[in-house]
Structure formats: structure tokens, C-alpha cells
């Protein structure tokens, strides 16, 4: 526990850049309010940190997975959703995820970047439409 506390302290001390704070708070808000969209903010952030497209997309999962777990728990707890609502999507989702994992490894950065830009645009239009 002491090590964990020290890690948190060190990380906070290192956060000189407001970009990290703003991005992080934005990602948390999106994940909580919209149930999606955190990853779409995390990828540009990681790229601004110097990661290539592929790594940024892979690493964005490390942020969105714990957040989504927390949000899912809150949504369940408040009764917005039940486990049985989601259970029938899990198996095809896992199959798709296996395919997606392979695809991300094989795809060139430029293609990923293009698809990411298109999907970002698409998500924006959908959100705007309400």
C-alpha cells in the first residue's frame, strides 16, 4: 500500500502539464455521462505524447477499461442496466475482439489513422444529431 501511495504521489508531482489533467477529467466525464467516448479523447492525447497510432490505440484501452468497469458498476448499481441486458452481446463481442486484436497488430499506422479520423467524425455527427 505504501508503494502504491508513493506511486500516486510521484505521478501527481510529475503532472506539470495541464493537458494531462484536462484530458483526464474530460475522459472521466465522457465515460460517466455518455457511457462511451473516453478512448476517442485518449488516443489523440497519447499521440501528442509521441506514441505512434497503433500504440496509442492499444494503450487507450488501459485507461478506458478500468474507467468503464467503474462506470458499469455505477450504472448497474443505479439500475440503469441489468447484467441480463448485456449478456447476449458478450460472446459475439469477444469473437470480434479477438479479430480486432489481430487486425490492430497487422494494420499499418496510416490506415489506422485514417479510420480513426473517419470514426471520430462519425461519432461527432451522431452526438450532434442527439
Amino acid at each position, binding site marked *: 500500500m505504501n508503494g502504491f501511495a508513493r*506511486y500516486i504521489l510521484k*505521478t*501527481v508531482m510529475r*503532472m506539470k502539464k495541464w493537458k*494531462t489533467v484536462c484530458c*483526464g*477529467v474530460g*475522459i*472521466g*466525464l*465522457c*465515460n*460517466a455521462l*455518455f*457511457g*462511451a*467516448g*473516453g*478512448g*476517442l479523447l485518449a*488516443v*489523440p492525447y497519447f499521440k501528442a*505524447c509521441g*506514441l*505512434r497510432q497503433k*500504440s496509442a490505440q492499444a*494503450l487507450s*484501452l*488501459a485507461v*478506458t*477499461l478500468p*474507467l468503464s*468497469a467503474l462506470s458499469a458498476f455505477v450504472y448497474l448499481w443505479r439500475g*440503469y*442496466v441489468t447484467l441480463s*441486458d448485456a449478456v447476449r*452481446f*458478450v460472446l*459475439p*463481442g*469477444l469473437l*470480434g*475482439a*479477438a*479479430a*480486432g*486484436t489481430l*487486425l*490492430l*497488430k497487422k494494420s499499418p499506422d496510416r490506415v*489506422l489513422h485514417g479510420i480513426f*479520423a473517419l*470514426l*471520430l*467524425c*462519425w461519432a*461527432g455527427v451522431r*452526438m*450532434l*444529431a442527439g
Partner: protein
Amino acid sequence: MTWMPLISFIAAALAGVCGAMGFGSGTVLLLYLTFCLSVDQQTAQGINLLFFLPAAFLALTVYLAGRDLPLRRAGGLLLCALPGAALGYALLSVLPVALLRRFFGAFLIVLAIKEFLSLKKTKKQPTFR
């Protein structure tokens, strides 16, 4: 009606692909749930969150095993995201979420334009990792 299970399967699988690749499973799944099944927005968001967990866990395990990712950066970002999420939960039933969605949508389009503009630079850039 006999087509519905197949369409549902395809939608969920596609969402899994998108989720695992870091594009966000919501881009596909939320659309399918709200438009095709007319699930209400909040339930759809909950389903999306629950759905994302196993898919992302699978993908992340593979990525972490396969390449050297700077997890420290993710840790810093996550640390900032937690207060944001807490604020979000507190305001979930108070805020006009529909209005916020529009603002966020506009912001995403700005981000998308930025991505399109930087597309030329992503040829064979010598970035680390």
C-alpha cells in the same frame, strides 16, 4: 424477425472489433441499440459499458504481452480521469446530458478535422515505440 439474431450478432462482433482496436465499441453498439432496438439512451450506455469490459480485457492482455507500452502515461491519465468520472456520476441525473452530447459532438468534429489535417504526416514517422 428471423434476421434479428444474425444482425445482433454482426453488430456485437463489429463493436467488439472496434472496441478491441481502441476505436470505442460505442461507435457501433450504441447506434445499433438505440436505432435498431430502440433501447433508451441510458440503458444502451450501460450495455455498452458492460459489453466493453470482457472485449477490452482480452485485447489489452494481448497488447501488454506483445509490446512494450508506456503504462506510466496511462496511469497518469487514469488518475486524472477518476475525479472527472466521480463528477460525472454525481451530475448524471442533474445535468442536461442531451445538450452536453451536442457540445461533445461538436468538439469531436473539431478533433476529427485535426486528425484529417495531420494524416499526411503519418507516413513513416520515426516516433518511438
